[in-house]
């Protein structure tokens, strides 16, 4: 969005000159013409509908949108549900799950991705084969990942059953059937899918580090651990930021993974806010509550993205 507005600001002064030929005027206008449709579509279908959703969250919409404003009743209900922990309300479950899932998913993906990238960066043979193997899960959709892990983690079909058949009968792993642990299986499947991609990001970052700095540090007698701890990881800071943003938005929208892997979990114990939103808007015909939860999700993302954008834009003048 920012690029478009700057261009619009720049061009009028050019076009105002009378001796400019038709051709160069067209050339000036070309970027605007090319960008206009996508700009218009974004305005309507992204920002327009965001505003519409915000509006709906203040109405009493049920099955169909209704346009009479009735105040923040939907938010009041969500607020009340936020503190209903025993027995947990669906909203309480959704947001605590979001906290657990978001933190573990982002943290483990970053740690594992960095670790794998450092290992792959040791100039080992067969890197060309290994890299795509780690990267491949990202090519699968969440649905495929979810179904595959659902079968693998199912005590009656997958890992537990297989180990029992091999003779390890005391082995017990039923997290996917357990209301308190089911969210961690979502973390496992999510990490499996995304960590390879994060590894690729870190690998690109590692390849971008100047070899001279490394050599200088080695001459000064830095150990390998110190080298990474003091030099490489600090230099990777921009990669951390990008990876964090990618993971954060994947985490907040991972609706399909929960559905495919757990179909909501025992008693709805694996819900994320996105599941809550879909469930209330489309299944329970409580469109106002669904919209309100969507607005809260948007606010959460904004709270993460805006500081990032701010720091990025601030650094540019340097």
């Amino acid at each position, binding site marked *: 969005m920012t690029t478009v507005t700057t261009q619009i600001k720049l061009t009028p002064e050019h076009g105002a000159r009378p001796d400019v030929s038709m051709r160069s005027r067209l050339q000036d206008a070309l970027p605007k013409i090319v960008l206009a449709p996508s700009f218009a579509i974004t305005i309507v279908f992204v920002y327009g509908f965001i505003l519409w959703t915000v509006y709906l969250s203040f109405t009493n919409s049920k*099955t169909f949108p209704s346009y009479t404003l009735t105040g923040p009743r939907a938010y009041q209900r969500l607020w009340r549900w936020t503190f209903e922990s025993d027995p947990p309300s*669906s909203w309480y479950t959704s947001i605590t799950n979001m906290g657990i899932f978001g933190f573990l998913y982002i943290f483990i993906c970053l740690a594992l991705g960095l670790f794998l990238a450092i290992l792959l960066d040791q100039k080992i043979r067969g890197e060309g084969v290994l890299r795509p193997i780690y990267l491949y899960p990202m090519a699968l959709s969440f649905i495929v990942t979810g179904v595959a892990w659902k079968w693998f983690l199912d005590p009656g079909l997958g890992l537990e059953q297989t180990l029992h058949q091999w003779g390890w009968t005391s082995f017990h792993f039923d997290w996917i059937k357990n209301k308190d642990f089911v969210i961690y299986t979502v973390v496992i499947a999510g990490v499996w899918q995304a960590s390879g991609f994060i590894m690729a990001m870190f690998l690109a970052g590692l390849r971008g580090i100047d070899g001279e700095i490394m050599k200088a540090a080695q001459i000064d007698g830095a150990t390998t651990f110190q080298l990474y701890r003091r030099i490489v990881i600090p230099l990777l800071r921009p990669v951390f930021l990008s990876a964090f943003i990618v993971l954060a938005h994947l985490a907040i929208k991972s609706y399909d993974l929960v559905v495919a892997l757990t*179909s909501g979990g025992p008693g709805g*114990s694996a819900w994320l806010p996105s599941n809550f939103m879909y469930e209330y808007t*489309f299944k329970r*015909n409580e469109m106002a509550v669904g919209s309100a939860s969507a607005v809260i999700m948007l606010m959460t993302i904004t709270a993460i993205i805006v500081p990032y954008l701010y720091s990025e834009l601030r650094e540019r003048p340097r």
Partner: protein
Amino acid sequence: MLRKLLIGTALGSGLAFAAHAQDVKEVEMLHWWTSGGEAAALNVLKEDLAKQGFAWKDVPVAGGGGDAAMTALKAMVAAGNYPTASQMLGYTVLDYAAAGVMGDLTETAVKEGWDKSVPAALQKFSVYDGKWVAAPVNVHSVNWLWINKAVMDKIGGTEPKTFDEFVALLDKAKAAGVIPLALGGQNWQEATMFDSVVLSTGGPEFYKKAFNDLDEEQLKSDTMKKSFDNLAKLVTYVDPNFSGRDWNLATAMVIKGDALVQVMGDWAKGEFNAAKKTPGTDFLCYRFPGTDGSVVYNSDMFGMFDVPEDRKAAQVALATATLSKSFQSAFNVVKGSVPARTDVPDTDFDACGKKGMADLKAASEGGTLFGSLAQGYGAPPAVANAYKDVVSKFVHGQIKTSDEAVTQLVNAIEDAK
């Protein structure tokens, strides 16, 4: 530019109008009957209409419960692009009727005598404001037990008549080393079973007051607490791996003899039929103990939309064919449900179907035909889903006692109303 576009649109729609001046010999139908048995059942209707010269245009949206289809329908209706008819469930019909987008089939209904032949309880959902807006296709009932006969013979069990006898039967199965109760731990399956438990524990009058009228006194009564206790008792007989299992996998456990019994609606019979099993010799269908004489139902309906004049003839043909005795019989034999009108001959049905039809007729006449809350025929979706939440949380242990469950149920229903 804009003006050109407007002219173009006007011209285009003018042309379309000219082309539509004659009756459209086409039925556009949105449904989610895409799996084998269901698609075959629907074919009967397609052939009926083809004989009358109406083409059939499917708008199939796969997905058992119809969530995806309902989302698609919402979009179509919002865009003003009404299908001729759509498969719909319970309160959805009434929601759309209240939004003023449904057609009026009263004329056809009077001519065909639907008022007399369709049970009054069903008409609550197919008639809105005195006008027929939907054609019921079938009646499913949910208070059934599906039992593997070989296992039953092995453990020497007999038909349980009361809840206590049912528990005793489950104990026998447990002692014999069979999984007593096949249950899929998804909220709608648990709630479907609880519908039967409540009917069995409190009787027909209690069920109606609590789950159709949503009477708070009944919802928080001791009878409701006892119902939750009975549910807790049943849940002790499931295998540890039940959570999240699909209903048809639970049925398969009974078919294979891994489990003794499943509490499920009569769509489970379709699975037995598909596995080439015969009622009476391979499997048994009993009413849930203590619910004989009452029927807890849900029903598939074809909601009829307010289509333009030129498409009304096709709609009337579809509605007439849907409620014709021949289609009702042929379709429901394949689908496993029973006809939505009570005057259809039961000659083509198997033993379970015959019993189902007789029960429906008796229940309809005796006033013991009730909408299933779990299946969205007892109360609007917001309430029904709040109910499913509470039952599921109780089964999976987030809600620990029946006292707490009753409080939660009252609050959740009050909240959703």
